[in-house]
Structures are given as structure tokens and as C-alpha cells.
């Protein structure tokens, strides 16, 4: 594969990125010019049921939220790895590939079982967490 072929492939990726960016930023730019603007002292303030907020929200939140985020991350990556498997799945060794995917997903689902046993999913409030 000479360099031009490779470059050509990569140019599609570049094109895809540019269109994506335009698709995202385009409405913002158009709205800036075409849309009317509302103004007022409280326009950019935080909306909290019509009253000014008090106290800061930068507090140490309970650890359970981080655990949920971690579990989600684990399975998000898990799904991303499955995408390439789709392309290479019908290359002959059907059962072997299937077994590999089952092992791969099985090991990762141990995370859920471990978290379940440790009681991450019950929303009880641990007194010492105050």
C-alpha cells in the first residue's frame, strides 16, 4: 500500500471529523447571528426554581456515585472492544470467536457481580458517610 492509498483512507477520517465539527458548531454560529437575545441581570445565573442559589455545590459527594461511574466506564470500554470483533467475526473459525467473545464479556461482567455482592446497588445511607 503506497503512501497515497493510506493518505486517501485517512482523508476520509479527516473529512468525517470536519463535517462532525461543522455539524456541531454550525447551529451555534448561526444562532449567534440570527436569533434574538434576551438580556436581564439574572439571565446567566443558575436556574434553581426561581430563587438565587446559596451555599456551594462543590462538596464531597458520597462515594457511591464514583462507583457507578466506574462500572459504567468498564462496560463502555467493553462495548468499544466489541465493535472490531464484528468485522473480524465471519472469518471461518465461528465457534472459536464466539467462545472468545463470551469469555471476554464474562470476565468483565464479574465486575457487576462483585459490585452487587458488595451492596453498591442498594441506596442505603451509611451513617458514617456524613
Amino acid at each position: 500500500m503506497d503512501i497515497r492509498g493510506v493518505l486517501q483512507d485517512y482523508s476520509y477520517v479527516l473529512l468525517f471529523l470536519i463535517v462532525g465539527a461543522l455539524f456541531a458548531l454550525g447551529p451555534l454560529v448561526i444562532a449567534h447571528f440570527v436569533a434574538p437575545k434576551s438580556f436581564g441581570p439574572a439571565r446567566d445565573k443558575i436556574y434553581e426554581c426561581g430563587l438565587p442559589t446559596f451555599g456551594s455545590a462543590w462538596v464531597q459527594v458520597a462515594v457511591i456515585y464514583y462507583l457507578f461511574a466506574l462500572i459504567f466506564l468498564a462496560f463502555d470500554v467493553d462495548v468499544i472492544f466489541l465493535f472490531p470483533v464484528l468485522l473480524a467475526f465471519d472469518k471461518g473459525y465461528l465457534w472459536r470467536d464466539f467462545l472468545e467473545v463470551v469469555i471476554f464479556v464474562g470476565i468483565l461482567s464479574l465486575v457487576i457481580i462483585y459490585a452487587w455482592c458488595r451492596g453498591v446497588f442498594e441506596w442505603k445511607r451509611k451513617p458514617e458517610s456524613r
Partner: protein
Amino acid sequence: MEAKTGEPLVQLAVLEDVLNLCRANSLWPITFGLACCAIEMMAAGASRFDLDRFGAGVFRPSPRQSDLMIVAGTITKKMAPAVVRLYEQMPAPKWVIAMGNCAISGGPFYYEGQYAIVPGADLIIPVDVYVPGCPPRPEGLIEGILSLEEKIMQRPRLRKFR
């Protein structure tokens, strides 16, 4: 009460008509029930006097996602700053319907020596359509919304677009 929204930088006259048509027929009211009129607003939103026929049935709780504020009920002096704040936090273009006599002029609660209410929503926020009644029947509110839609459609030529 001066308008709280400025007109856009670029004026596209033809596009304006299309925009107005879309905006008029997809008003998203903010759930802002203060008192008795809120019940008639809910009745207007329910199945018999369905507001969805006019595109105005999507009641959004947050001002960020709504473009029509139906002031349904009495604005007390303790509530007035919250009303102004909510109005300012709504993105332009935005409109206000003052529903019920309390929102128009204080209604049955306005008398010499009243210390607790703001007699009329137009003292604190610019109001587009007034719907009289105590409480106005759901048909009255629908009439108000239809006249608001006409108001939005009629004015592509006006400089001060709101």
C-alpha cells in the same frame, strides 16, 4: 416595562415569516401555576380542552426550555422577584400571557390597604396577551393562545422583534 429582548444582528425578512410560523405553532409554556388559574390551565392541558391541538401543550418545568410564560394566579410581593428571575432566564424569543384577573390587575384581591400582592403582572414583566376571568374558562385560555399566535405571525416587518 421595556422589552427584555433585543432584535438579532442579521435580519432575514423572508426567513422571518417561516420562523414566525414555526414559533407560533410550537409554544412551549412553562408550568407556572400560582393559584386557582393553574387548575384551569391544567384543565386546558388535559384531554377535553386539549392545548396540544394548538401546539402549546408541552408544559416544560424549566424556563430554559420554554418560550411562553402563562402567569396563572396572584403574584404576591414575596413571589415577584422569582417571577422576574424566571422571565429573564427564559431564552428569547419569549412571550407572556397574563391569565386571570389577579395577573391582569390584582383581581378580587386588590383593594385599598392590600399589602401582600403585586396588582398586575405587567408591573414587573412585559405582558403580551391578557386573558380575563376569575378563573378564565379553558376556552378563554385557548382564545388567549390563539390571539398570541396571531400576534407572533403578524409582525415579521416590525423592527423590534420579540
